[in-house]
């Protein structure tokens, strides 16, 4: 049975445009101008125990409202929100901390607010302090804490509270790198124990790292609900960022024939043809386009683009000088571009177009949605590409 279930959920906010002065109410001819704003409308989805779901959307798409509904902080105007289990919101952790009280006292207050009994807090206390790495400062008033210590303590209480549902809001970037890694591990453990995770973030890396499923909100409705990598592509689409850095595409802006080819799939796959969402630096991978021709395509070629998450194009390539053999009408083909991914840690996008003709005279016949993937790199390599440097020391000749 679902832990979270939303059916037909709508949330309306009423905005009063003038001041609530008594004189305005006494004037019987005066009409208070109010306007309705639907932050969410007809939102439907279920989340099963143990799922990890990301919520994406532009500012004003309804993300915060949705999170508030899931936290039970506000109620829907229409529809039903059902939540089974104890919710721990990791929303601006440490709210309710009193600066004059010590870390220890705040752990008890905060734990109680999160629904823990005193005995439970007693038992988990050491684990909380250890996780937050505050053994030395636990009896210091939290006003002397650095912001990192403050957030670590709040985070530790929330994750050690063993919630059934953890609501995460842009909080994953707290603490230093080591703490982030431990948070990541801890959240994996929590999920392994069957808890459900809902993450709202603009940080696509976080969503990609934590979530199997993503709901994309757009103008108060659900624009997408499905696998994360597709969700992220959809999100980019809604952000209105079109690809246009591609020289091949630049040549063909006038001529398009989207009827010529039916795209069946576009994936990053490994050597066995299995889809890849996650790659290690240097992994051999292939971008694979599966399509069915609706008419004869005499000189098909592919143009490919890979960009970083910040939309910096790092690789453009095309086989327009050595096109594929002709594709007959009705034929199903798989076009592949094999490439080793010498990239550093981070999120990337790949997209491709299929064209017919030559570079200077071609028709664009299909454009894929961008596919996203995440690369885990070697240790301390940073930059954009991993050139695989070999370090050595030897005597001078």
């Amino acid at each position, binding site marked *: 049975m679902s832990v979270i279930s939303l059916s037909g959920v709508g949330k309306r906010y009423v905005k009063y445009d003038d001041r609530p002065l008594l004189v305005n109410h006494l004037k019987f001819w005066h009409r208070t101008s109010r306007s309705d704003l639907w932050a969410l409308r007809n939102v439907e989805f279920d989340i099963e125990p143990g799922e990890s779901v990301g919520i994406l959307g532009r500012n004003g798409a309804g993300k915060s409202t949705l999170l508030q509904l899931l936290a039970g902080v506000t109620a829907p105007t229409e529809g039903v929100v059902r939540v089974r289990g104890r919710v721990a919101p990791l929303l601006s952790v440490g709210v309710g901390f009193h600066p004059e009280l010590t870390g220890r006292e705040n752990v008890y207050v905060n734990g*109680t607010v*999160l629904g823990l*009994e005193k005995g439970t807090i007693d038992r988990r206390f050491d684990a909380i302090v250890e996780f937050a790495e505050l053994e030395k400062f636990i009896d210091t008033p939290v006003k002397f804490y650095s912001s990192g210590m403050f957030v670590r303590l709040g985070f530790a209480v929330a994750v050690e509270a063993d919630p059934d549902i953890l609501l995460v809001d842009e909080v994953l970037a707290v603490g230093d790198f080591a703490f982030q890694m431990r948070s990541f591990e801890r959240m994996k453990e929590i999920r392994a124990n069957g808890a459900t995770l809902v993450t709202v973030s603009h940080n696509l890396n976080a969503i990609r790292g934590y979530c199997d499923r993503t709901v994309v909100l757009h103008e108060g409705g659900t624009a997408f609900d499905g696998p994360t990598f597709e969700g992220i592509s959809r999100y980019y689409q809604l952000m209105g960022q079109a690809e246009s850095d591609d020289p091949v595409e630049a040549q063909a802006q006038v001529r398009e024939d989207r009827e010529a080819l039916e795209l069946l799939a576009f994936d990053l796959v490994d050597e066995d043809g299995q889809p890849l969402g996650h790659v290690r630096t240097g992994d051999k991978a292939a971008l694979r386009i599966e399509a069915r021709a609706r008419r004869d395509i005499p000189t098909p070629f592919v143009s490919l683009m890979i960009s970083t998450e910040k939309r910096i194009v790092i690789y453009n390539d095309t086989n327009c000088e050595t096109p594929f053999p002709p594709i007959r009408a009705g034929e199903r083909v798989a076009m592949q571009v094999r490439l080793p991914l010498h990239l550093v840690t981070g999120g990337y996008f790949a997209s491709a177009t299929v064209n017919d003709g030559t570079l200077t005279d071609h028709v664009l016949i299909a454009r894929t949605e961008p596919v996203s993937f995440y690369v885990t790199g070697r240790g301390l390599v940073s930059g954009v590409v991993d050139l695989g440097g070999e370090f050595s020391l030897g005597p001078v000749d």
Partner: protein
Amino acid sequence: MAEIGFELRGPGTPVGTLLLELWRARDVLWALARKDFYARYRRTMLGLLWAVGLPLVQAVVLAVVFTHIVRFASALRHSPQGEHVKYAVFLYAAIAAWSYFSTTMPTAATAIVDNGALARKIYFPRAIFPLLGVASGIYPLAISAGILLLLTVALQHSVSIDFLWVVPGCALTVAITAGFGLMLSALHVYFRDVRFIVQAVMSVLFYLSPIIYAVESAPGALRHVVGATPMAGPIELMRLAIGGADSNWPAIVAGGVGWFVATTAIGLWLQSRHDRVFVDLM
């Protein structure tokens, strides 16, 4: 395992559900109330002594002023036991209840808005916020009651079993304050004027309540008004404890219970209608 979780359809919460949620959140109430109480005296050199010290100073001042400086017996002339009741004790009995009401109620009335930051992040019944101040104020109220006992012994040289009336007296004080807190804190979310109305009404109410004078010393029709003010009931119970109650005290106390029932009923109704949507206006 008891079913944890919630189901939300529409803005209202049935009163029964609200009461259940409140019962479940009782630990939160005490944890937050204790936090408030202790945090208040943190970083002060005398610490918790202030909780006893302040009302003690007040009581000593009253005792000195009204036994050595001002001989002010006229206020008690109509009181049946007036002869034995010292004015300072008579006054302090009322002030113990009044100072709880006058410091707690305005805070409770604005509590939901004032705790907006917490309210936006996590759910527990919003009625907890006004009840927080009401609960944390119980410690100083109890201390005041203790000091009233000391003052009675010191000035009247006798104390009877009647002193136990302070228990219902304090209870009714807390109950009425809670009722007003529930009602006004809900209204304040929608009408921010409440904060100032409360301030204005409190200053009028101080003189309209039988604090510095006895109900019977009020002239004519005004006597009924004085007896019907919200705090008159608890004050009469406190005065029953020190032997200086009005002859008409049962009716006045019944009035106090009436205030409690009315404000609590309206308060719970408002809270249940708006519990989960207060946040939308903050």
